[in-house]
């Protein structure tokens, strides 16, 4: 079975992650959707790396993981700060962006 099937799988996971971000109001849930999208991208990198036969794709995926870890730390810190300030982590809540 060709590794390209993993790319299709990654596409499905990415779509699910995107739908999560759009549909869930809980910031943590949306954030997990983002993580799922990142992982889907990683899976794509690794699958293509396998098909090319080289290792650079895996290196890239590794870097993505590192950056994602850093991003999770900052993102969760922001969520905690917001939940302290507003007693809520609903994404619909902070509508100061309203024009």
């Amino acid at each position, binding site marked *: *079975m*060709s*590794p*390209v099937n*993993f*790319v*299709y*799988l990654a*596409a499905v*996971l*990415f*779509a*699910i*992650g995107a739908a*999560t971000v759009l*549909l*869930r*109001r*809980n910031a*943590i*849930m949306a*954030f*997990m959707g983002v*993580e*799922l999208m990142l*992982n889907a991208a*990683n*899976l794509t990198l*690794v*699958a293509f*790396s*396998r*098909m*090319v*036969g*080289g*290792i*650079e794709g*895996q*290196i890239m*995926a*590794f*870097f993505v*993981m*590192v*950056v994602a*870890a*850093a*991003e*999770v*730390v*900052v993102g*969760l*810190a922001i*969520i*905690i*700060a917001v*939940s302290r300030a507003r007693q809520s*982590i609903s994404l*619909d809540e902070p509508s100061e962006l309203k024009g």
Partner: protein
Amino acid sequence: MVSPLLFWFVAFVTVIPALSLLFARKPVHVAAAVVLVMVGLAVAYVALEAPFLGAVQIIVYTGAVMMLFLFVLMLVGVDKTESLKETITGQRWVALTLAVGLGALVISVVSRLPLSVNEQPVVGEPAEVASWLFGDYVLVVEVLGFVLISAALGALVLTHVPRLYPKRTQAEVHAARIAAGANPVNQAFPGVYARHNALDAPALDPEGNPIESSVSRVLKVRGQTIDGSEFKGDTQARRRELGAKEDDQ
């Protein structure tokens, strides 16, 4: 090549738990499901000749990131169930349509690419990966070190709450209470000075009069208290019984 059985296994343990992101109500359940997704992806990496990355996936995602998510969930309230009712008009259907469209677009593009598979791939063994990371990509690795340190510092800064007022000592708290006109001694507890030893009976002062404030407000509102006057009458009768002089009250 990848075993079809393995692929379908991976697909099964990633897509089904991932769907819980859309449909599960409790965030903790979702987090647990996502852990499963991460493990499934680790399996996929191993199957795709990237064993080191598979290990890192387990360590970083299931071991660190998802645990961090769980901690934060605990911190902000683990038992909160979220309503799945949509509040923005049309958001649900448009979002689902777009997500499906996104997936379909990617799949259709990829399926039309002329792709070949290298039969002798380089296997992502730790030694191989290390030689790349600390060879060609050593600068990136160092920069990523800075990124991680910055993220850690950023998290500290973001979650730090500065003290707005100096901490008050117990003596200061007490002085403030007296200044506000509070009773310096303890309030009377209900019921303990009379024959009754129950929460619904007011305490009696040395004169034998009931202290209304000793009974909980809640019981008063509910009407579950015992009227203090009966104890008063009782006391007067008892005193007569004991042959006390009929004094003024």
